């Protein structure tokens, strides 16, 4: 029996993008950092927030294990510059799912304030918080007053403060290069002891994998090609024991974009245009914004420059063969995800049921079919511990509970 099957969990993640782009948006090289914010219409934003939250609430009712939110700045890609606010809004609307902040780029916050905010969410949710710490994309450093040349050193120190705040009884002191605390003594403290589960978010750079390995944290790989993810998780598995930690399948968390429909052709037809929008529009930015000075080393820039020269734009064949994107029937998707979990040694799948400018009905269809037809197929492989009927009952029970409150 594959170890990953014992604890297989499905999270769903939402970027909550702003999708009402002006007709001439293509004249803007980047929809990040310097894309004029006059194009944001708060009324439309309000409607989108309502809609997107309802999709996350539905995911809780359908029995998903985690609801994942994250944070970006100055961009149509995400309307969650403060993802802890969205997490707080979801807590009273949901009952079961973990609330996953994957998460606040710790460098953009005072680490004691982040310890406080996350502890609040954990206590408010009754211990449902899970977090993952990103360095933040290069774009965040153009949008915030933080030097990208110190990003990695600052990240390490911020993490130290955060962990000290949660693992040492206060008041304690901290004397660092970036932070000094006379009285590190945050109230409240997290409900989960000593703290909520932590992962590092990254694209597989040696530095971020190293931090996860040293601390024994999980690693949540952002959307990168399959080969890069697998190399990342291999390194994590190899490195972790060197620091006295054991690798478990829940520590390899991967993102996958899925679309379930009645048949393959319909799935492609309903899904492809939104994938195109995501690749060509919401992720559109410039190399300069991606890599502010000092954000990566010149050697890594050389490697990245070589990598980006080899592909460009929306290439459906490459995306659907080399990236974790799968669409089609429940059977096909279950098989593909099963293979991916197996080869990545992973038991944590972060699904994107909403992508780009996908309308509400497709998200509901995709999320529901996945919960009812794909998850039971995968869980069923665990010696039949949970049948399709049980999954339905579980989902129905939670729905009833939510409806009855």
């Amino acid at each position: 029996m594959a170890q990953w099957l014992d604890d297989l969990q499905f999270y769903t993640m939402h970027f909550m993008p702003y999708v009402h782009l002006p007709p001439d948006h293509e004249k803007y090289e980047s929809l990040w950092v310097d894309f004029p914010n006059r194009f944001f219409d708060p009324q439309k934003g309000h409607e989108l927030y309502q809609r997107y939250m309802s999709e996350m609430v539905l995911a809780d009712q359908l029995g998903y294990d985690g609801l994942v939110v994250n944070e970006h700045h100055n961009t149509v890609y995400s309307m969650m510059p403060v993802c802890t606010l969205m997490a707080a809004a979801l807590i009273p609307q949901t009952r079961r799912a973990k609330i996953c902040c994957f998460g606040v780029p710790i460098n953009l916050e005072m680490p004691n304030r982040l310890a406080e905010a996350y502890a609040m969410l954990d206590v408010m949710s009754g211990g449902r918080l899970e977090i993952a710490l990103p360095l933040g994309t290069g774009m965040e450093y153009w949008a915030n007053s933080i030097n990208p040349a110190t990003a990695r050193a600052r990240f390490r120190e911020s993490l130290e403060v955060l962990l000290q705040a949660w693992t040492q009884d206060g008041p304690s002191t901290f004397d660092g290069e970036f932070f000094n605390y006379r009285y590190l003594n945050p109230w409240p403290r997290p409900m989960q002891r000593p703290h909520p589960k932590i992962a590092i978010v990254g694209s597989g750079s040696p530095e971020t994998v190293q931090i996860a390995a040293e601390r024994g944290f999980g690693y949540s790989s952002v959307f990168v090609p399959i080969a890069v993810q697998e190399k990342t998780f291999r390194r994590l598995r190899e490195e972790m024991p060197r620091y006295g930690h054991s690798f478990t399948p829940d520590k390899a968390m991967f993102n996958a974009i899925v679309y379930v429909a009645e048949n393959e052709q319909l799935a492609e037809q309903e899904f492809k245009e939104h994938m195109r929008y995501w690749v060509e529009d919401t992720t559109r930015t410039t190399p300069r914004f991606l890599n502010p000075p000092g954000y990566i080393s010149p050697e890594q820039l050389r490697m990245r420059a070589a990598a980006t020269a080899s592909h460009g734009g929306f290439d459906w064949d490459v995306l659907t063969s080399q990236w974790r994107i799968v669409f089609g029937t429940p059977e096909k998707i279950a098989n593909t995800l099963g293979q991916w979990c197996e080869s990545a040694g992973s038991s944590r799948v972060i699904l994107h049921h909403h992508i780009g400018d996908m309308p509400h009905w497709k998200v509901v269809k995709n999320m529901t079919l996945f919960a009812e037809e794909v998850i039971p197929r995968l869980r069923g492989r665990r010696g039949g511990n949970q049948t399709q009927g049980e999954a339905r009952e579980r989902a129905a029970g939670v729905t009833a509970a939510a409806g009855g409150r």
Partner: protein
Amino acid sequence: MAIDWRSHELMVNGVKTQVLRAGEGEPLVFWHGGGTAGGWEFAAPWTEKFSVYLPLHPGFGGSADDAGMSSIQDYLMHYLDLFDELKLDRFHLVGQSLGGWMAAAFATQQSRRLQRLVLVCPAGLWVREHPITDLFRLKPEELPAALAENPAALGSPPDPHDVNVIVESYRELTTLARIGWQRMYDPKLAKYLHRIDVPTLLVWGEQDRVVPLEQAREWQRLVRGSQLRTFTPAGHLVLHERAEAVKAVREFLAA
């Protein structure tokens, strides 16, 4: 006529440092600005009269990177070590842009070691009404026109698709970010410029689009007895654009 530079490599407090040398005469130290792309051929007239020392700042050209150097003062400490190594006690100091900021800061602390000081469109001063252009905000293709009134004077531009060019420029921008991502000036510099007690020449391109000419007035006010020479047409890289500017520096130092 191309300058016959002799390149020396020194270890300065653990940092490999490249020093170019040419010419004979009184020592003249030149501190370059925040990039090396334009080259140093403009300095030929100086080498006819002076022994020119052109050290590459750590993180630029042939000098090694040091992530620990994150302020102008770190560079001054580096140069105190380098000058000891080179046995340079008194010398002329010419600094351009970022190097001009360094030279002004050095002069506030080590004025007595300087024979004469030349600040070529120096960065470093905080002038609210006439701020320095944030070079980090410019796209690579916008840089030549921002730096020079006549970009052709800088020679043929490097191929923007050449990976080596991209990587080297990223490396130098990283060095610059360590010093000045937050701000390319020191809000306290003005408070200490009165300590410069050496004949000082300010050199400016009248069409400088990086450090506006208006800042020159402020420098003149703050550095006692300083003279200003302006040149036109010339942008920020006035030494590369106007041979008269280079000659004016030579005449000032030789006076």
